[in-house]
């Protein structure tokens, strides 16, 4: 098994989850409803926890400690897609991003239950219930607000159109794509994108929203090779602020 190919996959997944987990946690205390504030914060914790599990796998493959990897890299060393680093904006955007990303994430992990890398397959099976909740939550909200009032529909539609070019960047292929598929580690970004599209179409069809013609959209890529928007570095600075005060502290 090519370790570089495997590490590339693990890093992009872990970085996606850490950055989005952190972004979503910025809603804690500001959620639109008490109950939603709690639910969204819990899912943010789940994502950070999932990223931790992946950084631990990377550590077992010779990478540095999870905390070191999470808190001491600069933006250009992160492999997350740009979708997850964008600011939260208003809740409609955060919700649409949650829907678009988590649908892809759940399908990715579902494919990984068959991975030839046994430890990843085990992790995929273990967190299945968490992912089930994340997609149930996202789908229920999108169906609710996507057919509720003129304002809610318009807001979700606008956010959907802003988020779509970035969400296509989730599926940016790596140089190891062929290798990762032929070794049976993961079925590949193209296959994932196909499944993702059919799933989001299925949910959006139950609302008054519509998906614009994807062929006319230019995906925002580069995140997987360390090219990011101006929003990532300030997030990293804030996230690692406490860690940098005393890197040897035990929490």
């Amino acid at each position, binding site marked *: 098994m090519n370790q570089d190919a495997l590490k590339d996959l693990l890093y992009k997944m872990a970085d996606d989850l850490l950055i989005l987990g952190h972004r979503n946690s910025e809603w804690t205390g500001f959620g639109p*409803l008490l109950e939603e504030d709690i639910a969204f914060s819990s899912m943010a914790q789940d994502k950070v*926890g999932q990223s931790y599990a992946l950084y631990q796998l990377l550590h077992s493959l010779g990478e540095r400690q999870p905390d070191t990897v999470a808190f001491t890299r600069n933006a250009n060393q992160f492999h997350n897609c740009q979708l997850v680093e964008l600011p939260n904006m208003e809740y409609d955007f955060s919700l649409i991003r949650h829907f678009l990303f988590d649908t892809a994430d759940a399908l990715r992990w579902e494919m990984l239950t068959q991975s030839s890398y046994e430890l990843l397959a085990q992790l995929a099976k*273990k967190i299945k219930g968490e992912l089930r909740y994340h997609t149930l939550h996202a789908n229920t909200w999108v169906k609710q607000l996507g057919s509720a009032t003129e304002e809610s529909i318009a807001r979700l539609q606008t956010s959907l159109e802003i988020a779509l070019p970035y969400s296509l960047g989730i599926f940016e292929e790596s140089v190891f794509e062929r290798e990762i598929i032929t070794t049976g580690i993961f079925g590949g970004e193209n296959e994932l994108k196909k499944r993702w599209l059919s799933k989001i179409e299925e949910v959006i069809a139950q609302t008054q929203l519509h998906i614009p013609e994807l062929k006319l959209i230019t995906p925002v890529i580069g995140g997987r090779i360390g090219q990011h928007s101006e929003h990532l570095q300030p997030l990293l600075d804030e996230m690692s602020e406490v860690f940098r005060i005393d890197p040897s502290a035990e929490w």
Partner: protein
Amino acid sequence: MQSLDPRVKRLPQLGATNAKQALDQFGTYEVFVESKAGKPFQHEGSIHAPNLEMAYVLAKETFTRRFTCTSIYVVNTGNVFTSPTTEGNQSVYELVTANAASSEKKVFEIYHLIKRGKQHVHVGNVEAGTPEAALTIAKNLFGEGKIVYNVWAIEQSKIRFTSAEEKDLWNTLPEKKFRDASDYKGGDKLKNFLEKTRN
């Protein structure tokens, strides 16, 4: 009434009848939790939501983000039929009188309050035409020889249950000890710190 005091301005005008303000909040849903497989579901509280499915989604994290649990369900508060409440040595079932049998049969889940200040606990279900008739049957099935202060009857078809495939929603919960304040062992850390500074 003329006044510069906003509190006075907010007073209703004397003699005028004002239409009741429309609710500016969501309706409420009741949440029941099964803490362990085989243990009865217990009422844990209520939640605001725009509909039954949203109530389920929001109840899951609001009520079961910390303590281990195997299943939850929710129902619109309006679908909870409540009996009168008794006190002391009187069981509420003493107030229940026979009801005419009806040909239409629905399943009602039955819940007992056996100690004031505690929560309602599920005891079983019965088939009846109305919630009142359900209480008559529940009296014979579940009410013998004990004091029950209050009974709820909820039509089963109105409940949003956890499906069999959703049982994995709580699989990783036992590992999330970081959600409990006790996991941070703040007391121990403080004690160690004080001892260190004293020496």
